[in-house]
């Protein structure tokens, strides 16, 4: 549940980096996603129509992003353009600090989030894995907070699982793990840590077999959620036998074996 909307799938698959529209199409279907991200760019002969038509055909909701924006002002204008073009007030807010790391600029993100939320946008904010910053984003009206596991496209997984778990415990709005996912176990871990969902793109679109990886991610997210809800066993330093320790062959019937 994000904003007013209930989702069946907890995986949001982005469309960036797909080798072809046909592969993207099949990967989106295999992922089971109900919402996917798109970027807003200037119209050119080769871009127009294609992705928009595909998403309409697949009945997948569009979540425009503000990728490539460095300031709150740029992000707000991009969000307003996306709302006009795509007739949605949902926005994945992404304000980056530099081209090399693509790490979020926390101050600009909070600034933009506050204005967009006041303007009626449903803001899903991409952010650092900083619990305090996540709280600020929640307080200014974000519908969801989306901390990174690692830099965008790095595939490094979740570098600070403790922060993700802590952040989840401090927030009341939905929290999605966004960026850094490399393979299925990363997505499962995100869910095990308590995340409400996972947003990924490169891990699928740049995999050797995007459709196969999309399927894997779908199962990983489902699996991680089930594991989280089922409650994992506590970690121990030593073994804890699961087989009966009495009645072993070759032991004295009157004695229990000692460990």
């Amino acid at each position: 549940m994000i904003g007013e909307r209930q989702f069946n799938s907890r995986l949001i698959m982005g469309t960036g980096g797909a080798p072809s529209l046909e592969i993207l199409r099949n990967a989106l279907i295999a992922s089971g996603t109900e919402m996917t991200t798109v970027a807003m760019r200037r119209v050119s002969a080769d871009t127009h129509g294609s992705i928009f038509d595909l998403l309409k055909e697949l009945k997948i909701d569009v979540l425009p992003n503000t990728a490539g924006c460095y300031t709150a002002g740029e992000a707000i204008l991009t969000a307003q353009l996306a709302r006009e073009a795509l007739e949605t007030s949902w926005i994945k807010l992404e304000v980056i600090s530099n081209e090399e790391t693509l790490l979020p600029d926390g101050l600009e993100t909070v600034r933009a989030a506050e204005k967009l939320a006041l303007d009626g946008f449903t803001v899903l904010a991409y952010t650092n894995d900083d619990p305090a910053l996540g709280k600020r984003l929640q307080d200014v009206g974000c519908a969801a907070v989306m901390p990174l596991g690692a830099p965008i496209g790095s595939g490094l997984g979740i570098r600070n699982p403790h922060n993700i778990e802590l952040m989840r415990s401090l927030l009341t709005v939905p929290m999605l793990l966004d960026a850094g996912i490399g393979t299925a176990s990363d997505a499962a871990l995100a869910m095990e840590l308590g995340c409400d969902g996972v947003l990924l793109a490169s891990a699928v679109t740049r995999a050797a077999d995007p459709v196969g990886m999309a399927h894997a991610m779908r199962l990983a997210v489902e699996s991680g959620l089930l594991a989280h809800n089922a409650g994992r066993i506590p970690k121990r330093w030593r073994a804890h036998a699961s087989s009966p320790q009495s009645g072993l062959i070759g032991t004295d019937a009157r004695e229990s074996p000692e460990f």
Partner: protein
Amino acid sequence: MISIRLNGNEEQFPDDATLAEVVQHITSATQGIAVAVDEHVIRRTDWASTALHSGAQVDVLTAVQGG
């Protein structure tokens, strides 16, 4: 003629060109696109009645794969 910076390229248009005509110059699409003039969004319904000044910066955007 007036000079318009259309998606980053300098283009010439008649003095009385409307925003709708300028947009049509770059794309025939009317759905799935949004337009900003000097970094302010102009709603679709206002394109035909929006006049442009020389040197105006017009950006026409659409959704592409990303994110």
